[in-house]
């Protein structure tokens, strides 16, 4: 059964690079890896997606090793506004996206 595991929380300081790693147990061959960001009182926001190797957009980078058993979300030079919960959900039989508790990222000044 597919499942993802990620740290409960992380602390960082402004200007630092933050890397959040997610383990993807039993990820299916065809599944993409996606990451979401959620601020208080808002719905989750899709931030990046990849299948393998590295993907970069204006928000973050996503690193996926060849075996696809993990992924690392990299946030360059974080600011206070990056304080949020970050999720790496997994796909369950078809189009059912399942979320865990996520990683609470706290950025301090």
């Amino acid at each position: 059964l597919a499942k993802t595991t990620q740290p409960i929380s992380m602390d960082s300081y402004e200007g630092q690079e933050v890397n959040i790693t997610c383990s993807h147990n039993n990820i299916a061959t065809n599944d993409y890896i996606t990451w979401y960001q959620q601020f208080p009182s808002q719905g989750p926001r899709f931030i990046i997606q990849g299948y393998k190797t590295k993907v970069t957009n204006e928000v973050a980078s996503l690193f996926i090793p060849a075996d696809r058993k993990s992924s690392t979300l990299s946030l360059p030079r974080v600011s206070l506004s990056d304080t949020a919960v970050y999720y790496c959900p997994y796909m369950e039989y078809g189009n059912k996206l399942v979320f865990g508790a996520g990683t609470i990222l706290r950025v301090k000044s």
Partner: protein
Amino acid sequence: GAGVSQTPSNKVTEKGKYVELRCDPISGHTALYWYRQSLGQGPEFLIYFQGTGAADDSGLPNDRFFAVRPEGSVSTLKIQRTERGDSAVYLCASSAPGQAGTGELFFGEGSRLTVL
């Protein structure tokens, strides 16, 4: 609208009452999802529509919960005989044609339900 719209944003009701929550997805999005989120937890899947039909309703907790999407656009989540344990934020998400299987969903701001 440009994004997923959910109404009401806040709903306070009494135990035993009936509640309807509405979701207006992004125009053209064929897939629509309902999730429920309690404080400190991630979103919990409830039901997924592809067009007008419920493709997967395995997350609905019991028969007090029901959702419809009669014309393949707007969806309504209906909760009968509400209980205090139903208090949560109910999130709606939609996905573009062909994108649902990739995990790229667009969420609304949610409807916060409080059952007294």
